[in-house]
């Protein structure tokens, strides 16, 4: 079909226009997505995004998997910050079941979410800079990203596909040695962010390439369904961590950076400041971490410990019931949203009381943002399309689901 669309538009050509395929495998597309650009000289006259290359039918699969089994699929949505997807999904199921997770579990969820927000913004800012031609910033920051991934690996055993949360808490507690490494990360990452800012924030070439590119007004951003850093860069101070707090975010002290014009430069500044604020939150979490359980004490939700399964009859029955019949779910529907790195990550779950969700809908933050791509780049230069695409932080796994 894509060949058809090219052939069709070629008929309309008058000789001056040129079709350029950006993607499906292009270094700046961060996954496989494709944009068919129609150019007049270097000016973009039309940009048609084609998506679905990474469509794996996550929502359809969810209808055949139990609530716990869906967690690994959420890793593969936004794979740059997998833990935030885990947290978003389990928060939604916990809202459906109306259960409260233990304090320590909530603290560790906040800690890991903010770590992955930093890691995600590092990818976004660093790769955006690489796409425009500034390679050094990317390398400075990627050392910190490695440390963040080391922390994920320590906690969950996996770097990318973490599956760290469970319904009712966490897969396990953070291990010994985690907190000292996190402390070191706080210091080193904050230095690296300073270095990044010294490289870019006052760099005239960076200004030339990013200022005034992808400008969007606050009204337009809301109308396009923007959320997250892109919306805040346009001047709307909407952050679900403040506006509709979950996991106790209201008890942490942090600020929401807001831009004015919504252009690529503002999005960069907002993301850099958000990294600093995330480090602030991590600092506060580390200070208030207390020993305690990380799973709810409810045999209808949490699997019993293995040694009890082997020695006690009730635990064996609970284990069997949970694995074979799943959890008891109320009939109803919930929509639960969390502030992921890209914006509002929503899960809409319809339950008919069965073992599996009747319908599970993932509201990806970058789908509405990406839908405005054509209006953002139309009339601009082809080189700016790359800058705009990078600043939108499109993750194809989340876009296509």
């Amino acid at each position, binding site marked *: 079909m894509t060949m058809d669309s090219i052939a069709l538009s070629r008929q309309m050509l008058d000789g001056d226009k040129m079709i350029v395929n950006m993607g499906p495998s292009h270094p700046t597309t961060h996954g496989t997505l494709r944009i068919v650009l129609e150019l007049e000289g270097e000016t973009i006259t039309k940009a048609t995004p084609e*998506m679905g290359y990474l469509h794996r039918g996550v929502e359809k699969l969810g209808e*055949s998997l139990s609530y716990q089994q869906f967690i690994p699929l959420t890793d593969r949505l936004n794979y740059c910050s997998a833990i935030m997807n885990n947290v978003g999904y389990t928060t939604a199921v916990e809202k459906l079941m109306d259960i409260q997770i233990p304090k320590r579990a909530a603290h560790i969820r906040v800690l890991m979410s903010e770590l992955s927000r930093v890691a995600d913004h590092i990818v976004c800012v660093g790769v955006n800079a690489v796409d425009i031609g500034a390679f050094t910033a990317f390398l400075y920051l990627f050392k910190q990203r490695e440390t963040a991934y080391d922390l994920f690996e320590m906690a969950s055993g996996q770097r990318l596909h973490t599956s760290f949360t469970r319904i009712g808490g966490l897969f396990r507690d953070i291990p010994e040695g985690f907190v000292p490494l996190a402390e070191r990360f706080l210091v080193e990452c904050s230095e690296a962010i300073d270095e990044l800012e010294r490289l870019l924030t006052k760099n005239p070439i960076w200004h030339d390439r990013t200022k005034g590119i992808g400008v969007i007004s606050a009204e337009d951003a*809301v*109308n396009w*369904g923007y959320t997250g850093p892109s919306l805040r860069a346009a001047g709307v101070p909407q952050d679900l961590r403040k506006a509709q707090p979950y996991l106790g975010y209201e008890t942490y002290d942090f600020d929401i950076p807001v831009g004015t014009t919504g252009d690529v430069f503002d999005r960069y500044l907002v993301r850099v400041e958000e990294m600093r604020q995330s480090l602030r939150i991590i600092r506060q979490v580390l200070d208030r971490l207390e020993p305690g359980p990380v799973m709810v004490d409810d045999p209808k939700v949490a699997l019993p410990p293995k040694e009890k399964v082997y020695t006690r009859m009730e635990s064996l029955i609970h284990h069997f019931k949970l694995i074979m019949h799943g959890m008891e779910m109320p009939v109803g529907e*919930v*929509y639960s949203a969390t502030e992921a790195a890209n914006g509002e990550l929503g899960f809409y779950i319809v339950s008919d009381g069965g073992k599996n969700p009747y319908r599970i809908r993932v509201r990806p933050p970058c789908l*509405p943002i990406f*839908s405005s791509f054509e209006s953002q780049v139309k009339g601009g230069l082809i080189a700016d399309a790359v800058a705009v695409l990078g600043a939108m932080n499109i993750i194809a796994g989340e876009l296509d689901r």
Partner: protein
Amino acid sequence: MIIEHIDAQLPGTVTDRHAFRGDQTIVIAKENLLAVVELLYREGFQLLVDITAVDWPERPNAQGAEGAGRFDVVYHWLNLASQERLRVKVPVAEGESVPSLTGTFKTADWFEREVFDMFGIRFDGHPDLRRLLTWPDFPGHALRKDFPLDGGDVFCMEGCTAPYNNGERGERS
């Protein structure tokens, strides 16, 4: 509260309502959708968070009697000023279409395309209603309940039999 306001301004449009775990839901007929949306927009519900649908093939009058249908088109709105959320459900029978919201919300464009792609629900007045995630000659609509999980015969090689999901949900061998 917005639901009382809708009741006062457009009496009789809200056919059903419920609140579950703090989520406000109203059900309206598709004829009244545009009027309600206009009111919502004026009242500050300007961020259309999501459009999706749910397939209920076993619903009693699934074949398009008044008031109910096979699908629910589900809209989620967020009021940025008051941080109030509202879910609006519009029942629609198979073959019927829903008015498009692209006139008021630009973000409705791709969400409606996705619902059309996954459920086959058409949106009246949509400027470019093409499939979003699958390709144009994709057989069927993937998120309908009668679409088999493994894709069915179309995606099976010759001689391959579907090992699970013979029409029943969640039964895997």
